[in-house]
């Protein structure tokens, strides 16, 4: 048995061989090819918070936690639950349900739903109000499937400078799944939207202890009835071919392809047609972005009260390097595969480029299978660093509408719409 396989700490080893000072002696004793690490790295945890500078890690820095129906994910908050997906789960185009990130707004979220009594209700300004059971949704309507990225509006909020309050997400508040369910349009048509209606409002099962009428009591979102995205929306009862985890919205969740997750109501139970505008907090105050290019503004302009805002909508184009992740050295001269994902809420990603000099020179990456305009698209590129040193790998994507990721940061008080070109430092070691 090789000594290095025995999981001995250096100190323990020192005790056994009775050597007290000479690391050189141990190195020689182990043979010329292996040496013990300087200090065991385990036991040293990530810092407990980042700031006031930007979070420099790919993910947020919280501890791992195991929530019901989930693998260990990164804890942002526990009540209500907010969990981030660790980087390595993004190697594939579809994010596993058990690793899919979680973001709730209000404290009382379901632990259980009784399908004997649960009904999806379509009500309000309609000709015939409906209450449909899950079997009715599954049997009365032709199922449709669609791959779509669900990304939190505040994904990467911890990159902003100056930092803003809110969920301090790294990059893992996103996921892609194959969603299967009923077209929203079919449900609306069956209920019959009356003339003069302006909005469709969505409400799920979460509630908060706040007073009625306030955002701390109900989480309500709405879309204009004239918005063409309604034709693409799906009320999904399957996520990657499985029932949704409770934390991701069992029994059904709204899928709004290309739009930020704030509209993807979890445990969707009420679909309400309104003939008035939606004045509730989550539309009128929350989840709004400056009506400027990229939603960009400054703290000074906000303070001066100059910023006109609009509800957040589509996902700007983004791309990520998933592996290598910078946690290991790469020997010089080794040909490695760079892997990652890209997406856009404005149309298919049709170009991904990578750079190993921080964004000066770019080479085109090979795109993976096309799962549809709203899906993650995997990419890969082969890379060899000839000499040891520190390399800044950058990746940028372009979609079919010719939107390309910019290299400028974005700032707004909500911490939304971050899509700057991401960089990863990779250390290449001497191989001889």
């Amino acid at each position, binding site marked *: 048995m090789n000594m290095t396989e025995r999981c001995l700490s250096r100190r323990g080893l020192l005790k056994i061989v009775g050597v007290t000072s000479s690391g050189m002696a141990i190195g020689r004793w182990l043979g010329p090819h292996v040496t013990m690490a300087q200090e065991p790295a385990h036991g040293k945890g990530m810092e*407990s*918070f*980042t*700031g*006031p500078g930007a*979070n420099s890690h790919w993910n947020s820095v*919280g*501890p791992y*936690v*195991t*929530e*019901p*129906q989930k693998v260990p994910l990164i*804890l*942002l*908050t*526990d*009540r*209500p*639950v907010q969990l981030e997906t660790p980087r390595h789960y993004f190697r594939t185009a579809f994010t596993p349900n058990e690793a899919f990130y979680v973001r709730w707004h*209000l*404290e*009382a*979220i*379901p*632990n*259980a*739903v*009784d*399908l*004997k*009594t*649960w009904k999806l209700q379509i009500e309000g300004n309609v000709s015939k109000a409906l209450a449909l059971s899950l079997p009715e949704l599954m049997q009365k309507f032709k199922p449709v499937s669609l791959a779509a990225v669900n990304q939190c509006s505040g994904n990467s909020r*911890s990159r902003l400078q100056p*930092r803003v*309050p809110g*969920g*301090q997400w790294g990059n893992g508040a996103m996921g892609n799944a194959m969603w299967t369910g009923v077209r929203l349009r079919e449900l609306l048509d069956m209920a019959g939207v009356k003339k003069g209606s302006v909005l469709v409002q969505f409400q799920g*099962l*979460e*509630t*908060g*202890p*706040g*007073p009625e009428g*306030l*955002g*701390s009591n109900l989480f309500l979102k709405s879309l204009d009835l004239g918005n063409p995205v309604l034709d693409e929306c799906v009320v999904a009862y399957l996520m990657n071919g499985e*029932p949704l*985890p*409770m*934390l991701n919205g*069992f*029994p059904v969740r709204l899928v709004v392809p290309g739009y930020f997750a704030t509209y993807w109501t979890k445990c969707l139970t009420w679909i309400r047609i309104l003939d008035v505008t939606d004045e509730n*907090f989550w539309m009128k*105050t929350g989840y709004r972005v400056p009506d400027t290019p990229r939603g960009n503004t400054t703290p000074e302009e906000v303070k001066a009260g100059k910023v006109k805002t609009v509800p957040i909508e589509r996902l700007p184009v983004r791309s990520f390097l998933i592996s290598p992740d910078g946690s290991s050295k790469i020997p010089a001269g080794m040909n490695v595969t760079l892997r990652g994902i890209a997406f856009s809420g404005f149309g298919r990603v049709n170009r991904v480029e990578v750079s190993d000099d921080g964004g000066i020179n770019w080479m085109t990456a090979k795109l993976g299978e096309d799962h549809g305009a709203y899906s993650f698209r995997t990419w890969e590129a082969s890379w060899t660093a000839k000499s040891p040193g520190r390399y800044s790998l950058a990746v940028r994507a372009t979609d079919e509408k010719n939107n390309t990721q910019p290299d400028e940061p974005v700032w707004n008080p909500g911490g939304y719409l971050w899509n700057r070109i991401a960089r990863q430092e990779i250390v290449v070691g001497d191989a001889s």
Partner: protein
Amino acid sequence: MKNKVQAFFLVMGGLVIAAGVVYGQLKKGYYSPAELGSLRQPAPVELLSDSSYQAAAYPVPVVDLTPGDGRQEVQIYCNTCHSPRYITMQPPLPAATWEAEVNKMNKTFGAGIPEDSTRKIILYLEAHYTVENRKQ
């Protein structure tokens, strides 16, 4: 003292009844204390073939709030709607931002924190969670 005890039971009783009436068929927002850094896997839950689809309680690990004046008020009032992890998760924030956050809880979200406690909570956050003084 007696009045306070009576008020407490009245409020608690009211909450239980309200919760029971509104969503009889749903078990909502059920959380249980937990430890962080545990390597133990959760045991699988027992499943029955009835119509209730249930997940285990959502774990709530203890939050390490910096000791100091006002911590108790934070634990009482902030906890009504969210765990104090909402505080420790934040980056160090300017004092004015903390003040605005607490005021938002009262004005926008109707937290109804009494004025003296509101003041204490703001001072506590400003004393431990800004760039100048945040340690943990």
